[in-house]
């Protein structure tokens, strides 16, 4: 009788382990697979991608792109999302991670002259896709940095916005664009 009780206790214990979803992992493996998991003490940043300006410039948009597949309703490609800030992350790294994790198309070229990646297209929308003054730009906390995204190192709490401009930045609030307006 006593032995049976012990055996039943063992079975219950095993079932608890299995049902509670406890994972059996080494510490390294745990760290590796949970690198992007947001916890109370992780440093994070926010990122969003939008092409709202295209909605106001529909007539200039390349015909092959006049489709909801490329220009989502409201022009939001990626809602403001929170990501873990990894050491040495820059504004391009975070974009690269976000588009991969969300399976969004992107094409970027690394320019040695600038020492930075230049984003040519996101979600099949490219520079010049919507008129001769169109292309992708980025802001951090509302400001347009004056250099390549790969050179902008991020800090805890930063908000990176990738925005598509149809007017050299003026339609997305870039100050330098407004200088000659």
């Amino acid at each position, binding site marked *: 009788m006593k*032995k*049976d009780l012990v*055996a*039943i206790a*063992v*079975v219950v214990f*095993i*079932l608890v*382990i*299995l049902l509670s979803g406890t*994972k*059996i*992992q080494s510490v390294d*493996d745990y760290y*590796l*697979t949970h*690198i*992007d998991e947001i916890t109370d003490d992780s440093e994070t940043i926010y990122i969003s991608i939008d092409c709202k300006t295209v909605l106001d410039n529909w007539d200039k948009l390349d015909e092959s792109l006049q489709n909801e597949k490329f220009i989502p309703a409201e022009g939001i490609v990626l809602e403001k999302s929170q990501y873990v800030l990894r050491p040495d992350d820059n504004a391009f790294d975070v974009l690269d991670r976000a588009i*991969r*994790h*969300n*399976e969004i198309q992107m094409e970027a*070229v690394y*320019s*040695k*002259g*600038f*020492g*930075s990646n*230049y984003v040519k297209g996101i979600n099949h929308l*490219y*520079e*010049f*896709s919507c008129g*001769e*003054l*169109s*292309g*992708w*730009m980025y802001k951090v906390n509302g400001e*347009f*940095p*004056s*250099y*390549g995204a790969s*050179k902008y190192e991020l800090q805890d709490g930063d908000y990176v916005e990738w925005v598509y401009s149809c*007017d*050299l*930045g003026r339609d997305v609030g870039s*100050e*330098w664009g407004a*200088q*000659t*307006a």
Partner: protein
Amino acid sequence: MKKANSIIGIILVIALIFTGLSTKTAVAYGDENFNRKDIFAVDSLIEDVINWKKSNMGYEVTESLFQDEFLEMAGSTSGDWYAMALGRYGYEDNYGSYLGVIDDYIETEYKTDAKLDIYKATEWQRIGLAITAVGGNPKAFSNFEGSPIDLVSDGSYNRGLVQSPGRQGINGWIYGLIFMDSKRYEIPDTANDTREDFILELLKLQLADGGFALMGNKSDVDITAMTLQALAPYYNSEREFSYVSAKIKDEKGEFIPQVKTVREVVDESVLFLSSTQNETGTFASWGSENSESSSQVILALTALRIDPHNDQRFVKNDKSAIDGLLTFKQNDGGFTHSYSFDSENPNAVPSVSSSMASEQALCALISYDRFLSNQRTFYDMREDFTVEEIAQISAVEKSIERLNQNSTKLEIQQIVSTLEESNITDLSYVNNYWNLSAYAKKHHVKLLAEKEIYQGNQEELIENIVAFTDVNVKQVEALIDYENLTTENYVEVVHLMYLLENTNEFQKKNQYKTIVDKAYNHIQSIKSEIEYINMKITTELYPFSKLSLKDKAVCEEIFNRYENLSQVDKGEVTHIDDLIRAKTQLDNLTTAWIIGGGLSAISLVVIAIVVIRIRKRQKVKRSMEMEESQE
């Protein structure tokens, strides 16, 4: 110049502009004091920039610039302008390797739908100009479906069949015209756009203040200067163009019709440029003083045969446009973009040379050097003038110089006929021709017919035969060990292919060709393997939360293929960290299944044993009960 190529220019170039107060530093050019009247050593300024670029790439100044990492930039803005500049300067370097890499680049890109670019005609134009400057022929270059490619046609007068050259803005027209005029190519009657069309498109975009801009109604120094570089060959043409402005409106809001010669438009633009020059001789674009604006102005003035160091329109407070540019020169030989202080912008820190500022300064200095020796302009890439031709032009200029209010009709007529009988086919090189033109009009002297300026008079192309040296032979022999080849050998292999394609016949040529082709194919297969792995990583791994045991086989396949690459080639795979992460996640999942399965099995066994034991006990109990009842 970079601006010519894309909105990169706009975002990364013009954007390098700071509204903060500039902390201007003193003239950075060494300890020497510049006197405007001095003839200074342009050559050494040019060599300084080239040597800076070499050091910046990590090369010795005695080495070639055209090697490894630099060659990887062939076909991109970071590489082509340097190649073009060196070619125009006649610098000795390994041009064959540059052409080899670009040849393969174009062949690869032409297999895609967009070819060199979906929207930007300037990709053809910049690459084509670089090829021309280093001795290649852009009318028949590389290969597409078995025939040579005509980059001039595809990138300028027939570009409109695919996409308007102006799709990317004014730059497509500017550099399209420059490209067509680089060898004064004849434009076929069947062309989609003629030379006149390109000129008209530019004239239409002139703004009310006389200059040009990417957008808006205020002219920009850089764009104005670039437009002048394109219009310069037509300065001495008397042709009047009738067009409707696309920029200037009358009071009623209607775009106004114009009748102008190129000369009138250019004069207005030159006046605009002159009016924007600062007291230090520099120029500003988008509100910020920067070296690239000076460089573009110098390229424009020298193209127009205006002396950027002595012409009074471009000397302010005794500082010329050349002095202005030199304020940006750094002690390391390169040029800095700007002196405006911005602690966060590495491109604009004072005393730090930037690649783009230096490449544009290099082009400007070389253009100035050509100007000083009365040679063809930077973008006029026809065979250089002979000493006799220069003397002939100079003689005509002197006779025009002697004209004055009292000159007779006969004197003017004489100069016109001397010109007509001379070999001078290109009036744009007669600096003061406008003066002759003015006198001729006043005295009703008929000017000579314009010779071939609009239809082009392309010179015969000399076939480019290159040497195949003992060093090259050794290089070929080293390739036989195919298994050791990596993507690092790519540049060398395409260089050898180019040499074998363009060298004279020799005994072992075909044998070498076979070896090199095999090496090329081997490297291509590595490249496509890398591409496959990168593509698979992008399409198969994300999102991580949805990875299941179904993905294990694919993940392992990618990982094994990655492991089979050489150490060098592994470096070309992007996001290997994500692949390892996915693999770990799946391995852990497998382990979890195994352990879970094991534990479940143990549980089942234990339960079975318990059940058997309980049954056994019940049986014993029952039989005992039966025994009891029998008793």
